[in-house]
């Protein structure tokens, strides 16, 4: 990608600029104080609100801010205009409400709790593969596999295809913003892959999400169309992997590089629940997006229908107006209304699952490998785009 360097972050913001990718929080910190709603003419015109309260206002206002654009790209058309629907995340009420209700029971806290033992077993099996070596890449060998294994099983597809999932996610979410054909090709490939599995479930129903979707009925009694089932499956497969992978990796990186927090979490496991929320706050991986549906002025900024908008929840999570010492990881922070899973009607459908996976991944890791270090911090590459996380984590520890 050959983009001109950013001249001014308030008026020429670029979330793919290497300076931003290296340290987005330095830029957000400056914008929150000096120009809380930034703008850029890049990507066909995008607003970037950076304060917690503005993010909350916008996320709660689905009348003015539509979800038909959730990924900011160089393309002039929104993903939905190109035919990409992944309900409910790409949809607005009232359709959004109806189809989301079909999915909420599948990710309820009680269902997620049923998956906890198997998640722990999977995490242990992953650690078994490298614990004797005394070294691993915790992003590649561990963090990425936990969400892949769990969601594959929930959906009812084989987790042995994880390399293909990774490739699709990389092309769609990480290369998609550049606007080339690779993202569209990836969508076609995922669709084809999932269609085969849906067909298979139609002839051989099972107790999993794909069969649940085939049996589901909308409020008017109709079945979901083939495209709706594929769109939902695509969302569930792609949205939960990159994101949870990022959160697990960033949390383990923090523990590798902050021995006092690591020792405290091992010594005081009762802190795990608040620690998980704190990791989610500080390392929130997801920046959402919207499209202005009706003209509105927010914070003096005249937003026009068709304008695009990034919703950097990671910036809101470090707003000093809401969080004391916002850049500090405080394992026992008691007040933590963070936006890692968004807020409003699009609250992450899989938030209960992601929380469970993050907690179990950290608990299992600390149980097996309580002491570990990063080989070389300067070498950690972070992903660019709307899902942020460490993509390689070379760790060393005592072989056991």
């Amino acid at each position, binding site marked *: 990608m050959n983009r001109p360097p950013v001249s001014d972050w308030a008026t020429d913001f670029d979330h793919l600029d290497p300076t931003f990718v290296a340290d987005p929080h330095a830029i957000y910190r400056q914008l929150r104080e000096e120009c809380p709603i930034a703008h850029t003419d890049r990507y066909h015109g995008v607003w970037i609100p950076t304060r917690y309260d503005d993010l909350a206002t916008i996320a709660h206002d689905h009348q003015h801010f539509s979800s038909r654009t959730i990924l900011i790209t160089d393309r002039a058309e929104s993903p939905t205009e190109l035919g990409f629907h992944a309900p409910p995340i790409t949809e607005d009420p009232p359709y959004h409400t109806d189809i989301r209700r079909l999915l*909420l*029971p599948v990710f*309820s*806290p009680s269902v997620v709790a049923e998956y906890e033992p198997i998640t722990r077993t999977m995490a242990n099996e992953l650690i078994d593969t490298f614990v004797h070596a005394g070294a691993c890449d915790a992003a590649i060998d561990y963090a990425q596999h936990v969400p892949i294994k769990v969601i594959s099983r929930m959906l009812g597809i084989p987790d042995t295809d994880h390399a293909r999932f990774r490739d699709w996610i990389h092309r769609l979410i990480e290369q998609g913003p550049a606007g080339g054909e690779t993202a569209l090709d990836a969508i076609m490939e995922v669709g084809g892959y999932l269609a085969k599995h849906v067909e298979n479930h139609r002839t051989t129903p099972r107790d999993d999400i794909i069969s649940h979707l085939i049996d589901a009925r909308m409020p008017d009694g109709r079945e979901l169309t083939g495209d709706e089932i594929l769109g939902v499956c695509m969302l569930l497969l792609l949205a939960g992997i990159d994101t949870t992978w990022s959160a697990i990796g960033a949390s383990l990186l923090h523990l590798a590089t902050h021995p006092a927090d690591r020792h405290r979490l091992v010594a005081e496991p009762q802190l795990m629940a608040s620690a998980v929320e704190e990791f989610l706050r500080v390392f929130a991986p997801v920046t959402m997006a919207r499209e202005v549906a009706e003209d509105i002025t927010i914070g003096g900024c005249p937003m026009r229908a068709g304008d695009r908008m990034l919703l950097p929840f990671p910036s809101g999570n470090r707003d000093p107006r809401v969080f004391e010492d916002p850049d500090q990881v405080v394992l026992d922070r*008691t007040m933590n*209304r963070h936006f890692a899973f968004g*807020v409003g009607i699009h609250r992450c459908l899989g938030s209960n699952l992601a929380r469970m996976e993050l907690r179990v991944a950290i608990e299992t890791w600390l149980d097996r490998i309580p002491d570990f270090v990063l080989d070389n911090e300067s070498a950690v590459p972070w992903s660019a785009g709307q899902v942020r996380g460490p993509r390689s984590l070379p760790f060393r520890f005592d072989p056991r």
Partner: protein
Amino acid sequence: MAPVKVVVDAQRCQGHNRCAALAPELFAIDDLGYAQAALTDHLDGAQLASARLAAANCPEHAIRIED
């Protein structure tokens, strides 16, 4: 026994489930993941503290504690 009432605003609750995680005895979660106050009055001191903690962590500001 503090004469207080815990109320979950169903219009605001989006099913984040933070309240039930922090105070499981005070909140019930339905099949869709939305919260309801399970114990709404006659809270003891520890329960009141849990209720306040849940309210302070609800991203939707959906929990009210009415004295």
